[in-house]
C-alpha cells in the first residue's frame, strides 16, 4: 500500500516537472540572493556585520584552534581547556597542560580566504549601490580595511600568499582559480596599499566600525611587523624553495620603508588630538593599578584610549566569551568546575620594574645571596629572606603587575586569594606541594594555607584549578559580578587597538630605525610609565621600549607576534623552563607569622623549544592548491 502511494507521488512529481520547463531556474526561497541583500542599504549593513565578525581579531575568543572560539558557527568544541595564546609565550603557563607552539596552532587559511572572497563580492557591488557618495566612500574604505586586516593576518602566518585582488569567476576549470603565492614583500606592500585606501576613504570618528583612526592603527601595527621581519630576519636564517623564490623573507634594506610608514601612521593618530591615555596622572601606585585594571574591565569607560573595541555584549554562543570561567582564581569559581587556568609566570613578574630602581626589570630576590638564577628548590643551606605577608616581596613593583596578576593573599572580590605552596616546620624540614597540616601550640597550619580545596587557589593539583606559578589572573577579569558558571557567558569587551600600543609602536619604530622624532617618541614612552605611577623618566632605548611593551600590553595577545616578528622566539625558547615562585610559611619564626619564597621551575613541566620553521605556519592543502610549501613542513 505504502509503495503504491509513493509511486503515485513520484509519478505526479515527474508529470509536474515535465510540464514545467523552467523548474531549474526557480529562485530558492530559503536563500537571499546577492541582488536582494546588496539592493537594500539595510542588507548591506547586515552583510558588513558578518564581515566584521570574521575579522581576525585576537580577542578573548581567539585560541590556538582559531578565531571566534566561543560557539560560533563553523568552530569546534568550545571546551578547549582554556589554553590561551599567552601560554604559547613566556607570559603564562596553563595550570595543567604543558603544551607549546604546535604545527596546527593559529592556522587561518580557509577562513582567511573566505573573508577575502566575501569582501571582494562586496567591492564588486559598491559602484552599483543606490547610496550617497559619502556612504559609498565609507563602504569602499571599510572593505579596504577588512581586506587589509585579512592579508595582514595571512602575511604574518604564512609570509607571501596568493593575492586575490578581485573576486574570481568560475569558468568551468578549477585550474583557472589557482593563483600562485606572491613574494612576502609584495604581500606586505599590498597590506600597506589597502591600509592607505582605507585611510583615504574613511572618515574620522569613533565607534565600533572602522574609521580613519582604526585604519591608521592597523597600518601602524602591520608596518612595524613588516619592518621588524626585515630588520631581524637574519637572526633566524632559513632555506628552501620558499626562501629562494622570496615567498618568505624580506631584505634588511626593506626595513627603513616600513619603519617610516609606521612612524607616519602613528604620528597621524598622535597629532589628531583625538586620543589620550586613560587616567594619565594617578596620585599613587595603588591608584595606577586600579586605573589599569578598570581600563580592561570596561573599555567603554575609556573611549579616549580605546581606538577600536570588539564587543562581547550578549551572553551566548558566538557572542559571549569564556575568560572569566577559565581564568578567575579557584576560590571565586562559583560552582564552575574549571577555574584558575591562567598562571602568569615568574619570568613575567620579574620583568616589572621596582619604583626603587626605575629603568630596569626587578627580579624577585628570595635569598640573602641575591641569586635569582638558582632554581634548584628549597635547601636548608640557603638563607631565605623573611616577609610578613605572602605578597610583601612584591612591594614597590610596577602598578601594572598588581593590575595584571592576582598576587598571593591579595584581595579579589572582597576575599583574600590564598596562594601558598607549603611550610617549613620548626625543625627546618620543608613540606612543599603536598597536602599536609601540623598543629603547633594549639594552632593548625596547612600547607596550602587553608584546610579545604574551596578555600585556596594555589599549588594543589586538585582539578587543575590552582595556580602552579604562584600567581593568578586579574587583567580583563570582571570583578563586579560573580562568575556565571556556563559557556560563553562573559561579556567583557576587548580593546583591539588602544592609544598606548600606538605610542609603543611609535617608540619602537623610532628607536629601531634611528629616524624620526626621538623626543616625541621618548615622551610617549614616559607618558605610559607615568600612567603606571612612575615619577622618573627613562631614555628611549630598544631595551626600555621592549620591556615597557611587554608589561603594558601583557596578555593582549601581542607577545606571541613580538617574538615572531623580532625573531626572538627560537633564542628565547631553547630548552627553556618557565618559572614559579613558591610562597612558604616559615613556622620556625613562630609566634611571628613569616613567609619565605623559593624560585623553582614550574612544577610538572618540561623545557620548551621553538622550532625555527614555526616562524611560518604550514600552508594547508598544497596537494590540491599547488602552492610552494614553507620550509621544513
Amino acid at each position, binding site marked *: 500500500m505504502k509503495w503504491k502511494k509513493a509511486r503515485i507521488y513520484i509519478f505526479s512529481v515527474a508529470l509536474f516537472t515535465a510540464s514545467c520547463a523552467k523548474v531549474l531556474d526557480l529562485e530558492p526561497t530559503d536563500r537571499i540572493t546577492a541582488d536582494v541583500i546588496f539592493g537594500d542599504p539595510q542588507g548591506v549593513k547586515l552583510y558588513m556585520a558578518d564581515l566584521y565578525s570574521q575579522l581576525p581579531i585576537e580577542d578573548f575568543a581567539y585560541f590556538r584552534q582559531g578565531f571566534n572560539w566561543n560557539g560560533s558557527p563553523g568552530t569546534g568544541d568550545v571546551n578547549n581547556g582554556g589554553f590561551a595564546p599567552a601560554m604559547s609565550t613566556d607570559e603564562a603557563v596553563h595550570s595543567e597542560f604543558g603544551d607549546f607552539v604546535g604545527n596546527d596552532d593559529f592556522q587561518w587559511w580557509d577562513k582567511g580566504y573566505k573573508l577575502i572572497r566575501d569582501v571582494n563580492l562586496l567591492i564588486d557591488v559598491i559602484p552599483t549601490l543606490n547610496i550617497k557618495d559619502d556612504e559609498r566612500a565609507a563602504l569602499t574604505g571599510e572593505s579596504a580595511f577588512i581586506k587589509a586586516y585579512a592579508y595582514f593576518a595571512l602575511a604574518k602566518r604564512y609570509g607571501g600568499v596568493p593575492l586575490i585582488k578581485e573576486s574570481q569567476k568560475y569558468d568551468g576549470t578549477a585550474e583557472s582559480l589557482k593563483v600562485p603565492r606572491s613574494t612576502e614583500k609584495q604581500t606586505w606592500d599590498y597590506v600597506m596599499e589597502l591600509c592607505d585606501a582605507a585611510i583615504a576613504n574613511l572618515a574620522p570618528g569613533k565607534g565600533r566600525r572602522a574609521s580613519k583612526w582604526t585604519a591608521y592603527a592597523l597600518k601602524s601595527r602591520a608596518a612595524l611587523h613588516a619592518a621588524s621581519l626585515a630588520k631581524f630576519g637574519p637572526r633566524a*636564517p*632559513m*632555506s628552501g624553495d620558499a626562501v629562494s623564490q622570496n615567498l618568505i623573507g624580506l631584505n634588511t634594506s626593506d626595513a627603513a620603508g616600513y619603519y617610516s610608514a609606521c612612524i607616519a601612521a602613528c604620528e597621524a593618530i598622535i597629532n589628531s588630538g583625538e586620543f589620550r591615555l586613560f587616567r594619565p596622572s594617578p596620585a599613587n601606585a595603588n591608584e595606577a593599578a586600579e586605573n589599569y585594571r578598570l581600563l580592561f574591565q570596561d573599555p567603554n569607560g575609556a573611549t579616549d584610549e580605546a581606538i577600536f573595541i570588539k564587543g562581547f555584549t550578549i551572553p551566548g554562543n558566538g557572542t559571549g566569551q569564556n575568560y572569566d570561567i577559565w581564568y578567575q582564581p579557584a576560590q571565586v569559581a562559583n560552582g564552575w568546575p574549571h577555574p584558575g587556568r591562567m598562571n602568569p609566570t615568574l619570568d613575567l613578574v620579574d620583568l616589572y620594574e621596582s619604583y626603587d630602581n626605575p629603568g630596569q626589570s626587578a627580579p624577585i630576590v628570595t635569598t640573602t645571596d641575591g641569586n635569582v638564577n638558582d632554581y*634548584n628548590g628549597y635547601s636548608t643551606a640557603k638563607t631565605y629572606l623573611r616577609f610578613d605577608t605572602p605578597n610583601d616581596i612584591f612591594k614597590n613593583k610596577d602598578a601594572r603587575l598588581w593590575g595584571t596578576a592576582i598576587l598571593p593573599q591579595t584581595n579579589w572580590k572582597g576575599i583574600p586569594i590564598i596562594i601558598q605552596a607549603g611550610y617549613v616546620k620548626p625543625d627546618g624540614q620543608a613540606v612543599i606541594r603536598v597536602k599536609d597540616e601540623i598543629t603547633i601550640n594549639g594552632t593548625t597550619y596547612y600547607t596550602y594555607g587553608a584546610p579545604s580545596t574551596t578555600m585556596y587557589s594555589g599549588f594543589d593539583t586538585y582539578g587543575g584549578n590552582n595556580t602552579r606559578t604562584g600567581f593568578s589572573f586579574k587583567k580583563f577579569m570582571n570583578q563586579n559580578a560573580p562568575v556565571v558558571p556556563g559557556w560563553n557567558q562573559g561579556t567583557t569587551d576587548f580593546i583591539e587597538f588602544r592609544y598606548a600600543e600606538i605610542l609603543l609602536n611609535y617608540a619602537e619604530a623610532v628607536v629601531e630605525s634611528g629616524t624620526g622624532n626621538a623626543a616625541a617618541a621618548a615622551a610617549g614612552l614616559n607618558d605610559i610609565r607615568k600612567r603606571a605611577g612612575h615619577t622618573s623618566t627613562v631614555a628611549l632605548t630598544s631595551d626600555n621600549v621592549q620591556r615597557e611593551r611587554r608589561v603594558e600590553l601583557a596578555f593582549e595577545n601581542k607577545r606571541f607576534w613580538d617574538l615572531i616578528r623580532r625573531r626572538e622566539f627560537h633564542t628565547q625558547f631553547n630548552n627553556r623552563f618557565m618559572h614559579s615562585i613558591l610562597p612558604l610559611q616559615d613556622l620556625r619564626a613562630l609566634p611571628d607569622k613569616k613567609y619565605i619564597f623559593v624560585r623553582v621551575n614550574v612544577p610538572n613541566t618540561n623545557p620548551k623549544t621553538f622550532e625555527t620553521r614555526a616562524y611560518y605556519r604550514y600552508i594547508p592543502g598544497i*596537494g590540491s592548491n599547488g602552492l610552494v610549501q614553507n620550509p*621544513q613542513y
Partner: protein
Amino acid sequence: MNKIISILFIGLLAFTSCKKDNYDAPNAGLSGRFVDAETGELVQQDIIRGTQIEIFEHGYGTGQLQYLIVKNDGTYENSLLFANTYTIKPVRGNFIAVEPQDINIQGKTTLDFTVTPYIRLKDVSINKNGNKVVASFKLEQKVINNIKKIGLYAHSDSRVGEPMRLVAAEQELNAVSDPNHTYTLEIDLDANSSVLKAGTSYYFRAGALIDIGDAKLNYAPAVKL
C-alpha cells in the same frame, strides 16, 4: 522479498566498488653514513633539530617532500620506503653543502655522504673535576665564517646535544677560531643539583656552531660521567 533483494543489491554494489588493495607495502629502504672526507670518521649529528635528508619521490608531480633524520653518531636509516627513484639531498647540515643526487632505491640501498664538516673538535677531553665537569678542546674550522658559539651539554640520555640537554654551558665566540687555542667550558654540578642529581651518571658532549644560515652544531662524541 523486496528487502532481501535490496540488501543483495547493496552488497553487490559494495563489492564491485571496492577492489582488493593490490599495492605492496613499502619494501625498500635507504641507509648510510655521513663520513668526514679527510679523517674518514663519522660526522657527529643531532637526532632532533639536526641535519636532515630531504628526499623527493619521482613520479608524483609537485608532491610533498619527505625528511629523514640522522642519528647522533652520523648514521641514518629508513627501512620503509617505496621502491622508486628519489632526489636526495642533505639539508641544514653541519658540513659544506653537497649537491642533490638522483638515486634509484630498490631493496636495501646504501648511500654514504662524504662531507667536509664546518668545524672539527680536536684533542677533546671531558672530565669530572671535583664538583665541576670540565671540557677542553681545540677547534679546526674548514670555512672562513665566524664560529658563533661553543657549548658543553649534559643529559641523562646518550643522544645529548644542544637541542637535547638538561644543562648547557655555552660561550658566544662570534669570531674565527684560533687553531692553537684550547677552549674550556665547565658545568657546575652543585649549581644544577635539581636536574643533575648527585650519584647519577650523565652524558656530556661538546660542540661548536658555525655562523652560517641554518647550519647545525659540530660535535665530539658524548662521554658518560
